[in-house]
């Protein structure tokens, strides 16, 4: 037995902060019989418990895998630094929450990687488990290491560490991977054979079966598969309709980031904001029917006891029947005067699609703590560049409705560093925020609050802005200084990101395989929790890039030509590079494109997923009917 002993842990847990992060046992957690399960997954999230437990993808996979007979899935999160020290000092390996087994005993470790700042934590977790961090140094005695999630649409920077990547909707891929592992165990496959079988599964990318050649100037010349099983390109997998909703999620004891029930009402977004990674890689749009959502919320409430439910989607007010849905939920679960106390939150509301009726409904049920909008840019010109055409008048009238219904705080999200952005565009952020405050004061007086978050654009792969250089440091600093100087006063609050942290995200987002050396070195020099400002070690990263001879500016500040081969071009998210290039060129002319529910711009999704679309009713995806066009 290699379960970590209770007595051993008992010496450690009282010495660390929030020991409840490491003890499991939560409502709806699943502990299956280790010996009768053929395939054992450790589902890993490379950040602390409170963040990982708010990741919806992980929750879905945990539920799905544990429903399978003879399959178990247990959770593991990155221990905070105090727990890491304690475990290392006691020579204890990183273990799962459910059965307290070392990660090395599982067949497969599945990491969720929603963003790039988690990369060093992935290495650290492997190391804490006593596993070699480099895929090439692991063999059949070690678990397979798989990663999925939003960041892996450019898997290349992590290619040295991860055996296989799962691209796209994980629900179907993980079951196929599970089957391959089970069969591989039965046959006694060696690691390499198993990886070949995995490489054949649609949506699985095994980086060691692809060779990258570079040009003299350092850009990619060509990516070539080296094994017949390796797919070229490696295309993401999609669920043609949304799988049945998760209704029995683990209910954490600790206060997590999103401590509430979640129902995914829609996957994908039709708006086409040019900076938005999620809006491109999660296409097509698939809605969950109203009846299914209502039924699911009943079950979630009964199964969890949550008093808040979030309706999850990239743009929840674009859900075609949002008012019917929220009205139905209010009628069933809300209405304080009737003793029902479920709060309903819609995390992403679009200014142009949030109606007065919807606000009335949310007033009935919401916590009324704050209302968030993301204009992202404050001038009409710049909104044309980023393809988020909203109207200031609309924003101000919506905000007035919000304040007049008792919400005291309006949160506004903006970005700086958009292509062509000038200080005038930044000054417009200040003006707009003050206009919002003025509306709030007129309605609510001095209680009205405006919180403005200004992040810096990180150009992302698979978006129309994948050709765009990261904005210059001095420019960003000047713009942030301007905001700090001018966006202040009673009722105003400003948040911004440090440039060095933005820079790291930017370098990792559009990196190639060679970055693996820098990630490894930075981790060896102590980098971890790179997404935490108080843990981010800028010096470790600087030294790592210096020692490995890699140039940060090459990855971040360089203007890429339209015909450049990108390190992620052989990863197919369904949206074609040709379409992205056209849309990028449209942005340089300030041309907007309508919501693609109204008009198809041939992004490539329909031809990439012709088979998945076949047989579905016409309105199943957000795509409009396209007559006479051959794709």
């Amino acid at each position, binding site marked *: 037995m290699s379960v970590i002993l209770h*007595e051993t842990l*008992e*010496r450690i*847990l*009282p010495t660390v902060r*929030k*020991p*409840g992060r490491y*003890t499991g*046992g*939560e*409502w709806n957690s699943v502990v299956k019989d280790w010996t009768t399960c053929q395939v054992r997954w450790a589902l890993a999230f490379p950040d602390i418990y409170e963040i990982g437990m708010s990741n919806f993808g992980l929750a879905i996979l945990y539920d799905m895998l544990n429903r399978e007979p003879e399959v178990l899935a247990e959770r593991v999160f990155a221990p905070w630094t105090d727990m890491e020290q304690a475990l290392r000092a006691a020579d204890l390996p990183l273990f799962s929450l459910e059965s307290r087994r070392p990660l090395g005993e599982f067949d497969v470790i599945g990491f969720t990687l929603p963003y790039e700042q988690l990369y060093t934590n992935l290495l650290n977790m492997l190391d804490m488990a006593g596993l070699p961090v480099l895929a090439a140094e692991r063999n059949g005695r070690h678990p397979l290491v798989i990663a999925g999630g939003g960041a892996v649409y450019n898997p290349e920077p992590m290619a040295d560490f991860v055996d296989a990547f799962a691209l796209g909707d994980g629900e179907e891929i993980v079951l196929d991977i599970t089957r391959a592992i089970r069969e591989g165990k039965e046959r006694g496959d060696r690691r390499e054979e198993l990886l070949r079988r995995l490489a054949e599964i649609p949506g699985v990318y095994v980086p060691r079966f692809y060779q990258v050649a570079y040009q003299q100037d350092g850009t990619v010349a060509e990516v070539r598969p080296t094994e017949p099983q390796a797919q070229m390109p490696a295309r993401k997998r999609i669920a043609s309709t949304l799988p049945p909703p998760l209704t029995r999620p683990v*209910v954490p*004891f*600790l*206060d997590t980031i999103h401590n509430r029930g979640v129902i995914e009402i829609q996957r994908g977004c039709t708006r086409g904001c040019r900076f938005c990674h999620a809006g491109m890689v999660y296409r097509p749009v698939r809605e969950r029917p109203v009846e299914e959502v209502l039924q699911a919320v009943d079950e979630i*409430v*009964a*199964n*969890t*006891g*949550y*008093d808040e439910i979030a309706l999850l989607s990239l743009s929840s007010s674009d859900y075609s029947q949002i008012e019917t849905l929220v009205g139905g939920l209010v009628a069933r679960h809300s209405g*304080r*005067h*009737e*003793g029902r*106390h479920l709060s309903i939150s819609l995390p992403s509301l679009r200014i142009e699609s949030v109606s007065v009726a919807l606000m009335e409904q949310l007033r009935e049920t919401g*916590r*009324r703590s704050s209302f968030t909008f993301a204009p992202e840019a404050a001038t009409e010109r710049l909104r044309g560049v980023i393809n988020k055409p909203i109207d200031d008048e609309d924003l101000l009238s919506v905000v007035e409705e919000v304040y007049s219904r008792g919400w005291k705080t309006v949160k506004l999200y903006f970005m700086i560093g958009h292509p062509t952005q000038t200080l005038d565009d930044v000054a417009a952020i200040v003006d707009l925020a003050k206009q919002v405050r003025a509306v709030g004061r007129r309605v609510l007086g001095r209680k009205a609050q405006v919180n403005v978050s200004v992040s810096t654009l990180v150009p992302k792969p698979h978006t129309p802005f994948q050709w765009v250089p990261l904005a210059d440091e001095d420019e960003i600093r000047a713009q942030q200084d301007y905001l700090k100087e001018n966006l202040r006063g009673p009722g105003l609050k400003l948040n911004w990101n440090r440039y060095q942290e933005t820079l790291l995200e930017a370098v990792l987002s559009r990196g190639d395989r060679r970055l693996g050396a820098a990630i490894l070195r930075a981790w060896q020099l102590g980098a971890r929790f790179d997404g935490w400002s108080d843990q981010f070690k800028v010096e470790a990263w600087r030294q790592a890039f210096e020692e490995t001879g890699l140039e940060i500016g090459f990855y971040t500040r360089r203007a890429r030509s339209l015909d450049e081969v990108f390190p992620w071009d052989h990863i197919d998210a369904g949206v074609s590079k040709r379409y992205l290039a056209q849309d990028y060129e449209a942005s340089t002319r300030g041309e907007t494109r309508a919501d693609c529910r109204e008009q198809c711009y041939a992004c490539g999704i329909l031809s990439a997923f012709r088979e998945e679309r076949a047989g579905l009713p016409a309105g199943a995806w957000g795509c409009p009917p396209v007559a006479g066009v051959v794709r």
Partner: protein
Amino acid sequence: MSGEGQMVADGTPQQRLRLRFAKGEQLKYISHLDLARTWERAFRRAGLPMAYSQGYNPRPRLQLAAALPVGVTGRAEYLDLWLTEAVEPGGLAARLQPSLPAGLEVLHAEETELRGPALQSQTSAAEYRARVWSQEPAEAIASRIQALLEVPSILRQRHHKGKMQTYDLRPLIQTVIVEPGPEGEHVLVMRLQLSPQGAGRPDEVLSALGLTLGHYTIERTNLFFEFDK
């Protein structure tokens, strides 16, 4: 049901229940606030008609008698709960148990006065049993206890609202005795003040006795209230 009977749906509390419960090993690292939320959710899963506070952000009306230090188990914990419809206290433990996570157990439920004082304002003392693995014979520990109880004041430091603060542990200690436990371990039974005026922590007493090296477990075995007297 008469028309009058429908009136209870307006959210006014109709019944106040007092639950005695155990918080076991599985939950001992869950903080006081997290435990309160765990109870709330369990009551909702069990379909109990909880009464809510008035105001802008209504919360279920629920009060825990006394925070248990993180890492300490308890088998005489108390909470009060207000309901908008009366339920039969006798069947409540059985009704709740399927909705409780491992480590929580309802031991007893009874109705109590709807408008009586808050439970946490009524506590006076608590009894803790600490199992201590120590090489020393029981007599040595007993004499250390005696010496400790003879000093007029025991000044110690603790964190309070982010600052280090000096306080006197001695007046918070009512009794301490040592009993033999199984397999050569010692059991310290302590009765410490636990009231709105101040509370003694069992780990502080162990520390003052020099018993924190090595391994120990602590359980709160009893809570005493003003109304017990």
